[in-house]
């Protein structure tokens, strides 16, 4: 591998998460559009089985639109920054910088909470269980709501990226005015990390961020509970214990253990009163010394 290949590999490493994020967004938009299309084409299911207040394609579309608008601005800014910095220089360096300032990369590292919640919530796929339509729709609605909340949260994050990128560009201009030089990728990166970190931390303290994150948490819990309801339905159908039944058993066991510990403690206290104190293990003769 030549040094240039290593540089490229480094850039790839940086950008890989971003590409995955972008792909996930595309899939999501396609799925959401498909779902909305099917809904209008086939007509709404029975009112009892489908809660239009929960299924909110308009909300999803709005969230999608807001995000797409910001995304386009972010990409434009990213390209401008990279273009300005790479003109006349090595194409490898240009590629590296382009990837570092790509907003995709921002999301690949900062949506850990979102990913963790989704991993926990999504669990098994239940796509083949359409005979339990009502429960499945509830589940689908909960999934849609989580997608929407994720999109809203990503919009907040993207705004933070735009702020950081704007501040970075301003800092670069100021440095140019002062005739200061950034002579290596490392120096550029250090400036970007510093700028981006401040922007992210400021964003995390904002009411908008905290609210959107709370909404994701709530949506992920709704999805998880809907999945559990589905699982309980099948458990009951096939005679397996449900989560609720297991929780009940565990509760009883915990309470019984608590009682046992209490009795053991009482017994120990009685013995203690009757027995002289034991010698310390491996106790040496004479006093211990202090430092």
């Amino acid at each position, binding site marked *: 591998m030549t040094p240039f290949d290593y*540089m490229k590999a480094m850039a790839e490493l940086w950008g890989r998460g971003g590409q995955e994020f972008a792909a996930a967004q595309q899939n999501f938009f396609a799925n959401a559009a498909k779902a909305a299309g099917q809904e209008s084409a086939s007509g709404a299911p029975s009112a009892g089985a489908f809660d239009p207040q929960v299924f909110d394609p308009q909300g999803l579309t709005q969230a999608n639109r807001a995000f797409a608008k910001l995304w386009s601005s972010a990409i434009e800014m990213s390209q401008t920054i990279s273009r300005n910095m790479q003109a006349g220089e*090595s194409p490898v360096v240009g590629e590296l910088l382009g990837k570092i300032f790509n907003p995709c990369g921002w999301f690949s590292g900062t949506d850990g909470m979102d990913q963790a919640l989704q*991993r926990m919530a999504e669990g098994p796929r239940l796509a083949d269980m359409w005979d339990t339509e009502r429960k499945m729709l509830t589940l689908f609605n909960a999934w849609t709501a989580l997608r929407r909340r994720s999109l809203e949260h990503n919009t907040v994050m993207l705004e933070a990226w735009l702020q950081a990128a704007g501040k970075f560009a301003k800092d*670069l201009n100021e440095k140019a005015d002062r005739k200061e030089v*950034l002579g*290596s990728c490392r120096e550029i990166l250090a400036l970007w990390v510093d700028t981006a970190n401040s922007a992210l931390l400021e964003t995390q303290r904002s009411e908008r961020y*905290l609210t959107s994150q709370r909404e994701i948490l709530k949506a992920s819990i709704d999805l998880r509970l809907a999945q*559990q309801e589905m699982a309980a339905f099948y458990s009951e159908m096939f005679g397996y214990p449900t989560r609720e039944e297991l929780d009940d058993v565990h509760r009883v066991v915990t309470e019984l253990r608590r009682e046992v510990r209490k009795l053991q403690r009482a017994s120990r206290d009685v013995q203690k009163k009757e027995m002289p104190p034991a010698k310390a293990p491996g106790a040496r003769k004479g006093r211990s010394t*202090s430092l």
Partner: protein
Amino acid sequence: MTNGTPVHIKPEQAISEAAALGEKIARGVALFSKLRDEDVAIATTPKDEIWRQDKVSLHHYRPLADKKVATPVLIVYGLIGRYTMADLQEDRSLVRNLLKLGVDLYVVDWGNPSRADRWLTLDDYIDGYLGDCIAALSERHGVGKVNLLGICEGGVFTTCYAALHPQTVKGMVLTITPIDFHGDTVENRLGHGFINLWTRSLTPEDVDRLIEAYGNLPGEFMGSVFSQMTPMRTLMKYNLDLLEVVDDDKKFLNFLRMEKWLADRPHHPGEAAKQWLKDLYQDNKLINDAFMINGQAVNLANITMPVLNVFAKDDHIIPPATSQALGAKVGTKDYTELALPGGHVGVFVGGKSQALLGSAIANWLAERS
């Protein structure tokens, strides 16, 4: 050079940087291929299990020097993370430092709580398991009192226990322990106290539903919250940070050991998590003497034994003010604060702080032995 920008990266510089990077990666790959899991073992200080109940076990560390502190010391970590942080590696180990200074040391291991442990409460952990560990230790040594060394959430456990049963505690050392859970607002430093802020952004019902859905506070969930507190560090951890250390044996092993500790994040039992998040983080009951354990209010003025309260000056998880609040509430005049440089974990593994921490605790204990 590019007109209008201060970026001056010449092709030869780029080649030089890329070449250096290539060499680094090549050395890192060679090092990585030689490593085995045992090379990154953590918590290796020899110890023996002396007591066990349910998933909780009590261990005695084998001494590394003559005893200089007569009363045994029990290390109590919390349910978020694991005690192995105090013994990460041989040259960065609070446990080894204390043993070398003649402290007779024990540690309680809470095990790996699962969904089956959903109904365990902080009452069970503090008044139950911890109380039984202390009783086992007292019996083993034939003493009426032991020293407690609480770490983070474990410090809250020892604080509650000491307030409820002061007659059984000779002295208490707290490290990076939150007491005033709203104390993050005192300094309001950027990037500090995010867990406090985040928890307050939730409603009590949100917490109840979270536990209803998952049965516990999942370890990976808390891991994500911690990652958010250092966003750019998280973003660069597995690319640039790793590249920084990949060709240095010692630094690379340190990195991997820390990763091992971070990955070992047990679930927090559900009912105990509700108390932790609602009663303490949201309602701040501990500092107001309103936190209840087994029907008894935890009154901090009942802490009449000597207290050493250690905090990290740059702790972004437990901001200093949240720890320091204890000073005004305890009922002892023998209260000492020790501010150490570094952050939440740095106190235990940072080159400078971890050495200071061990000797400060050992000296403090010895003076009161």
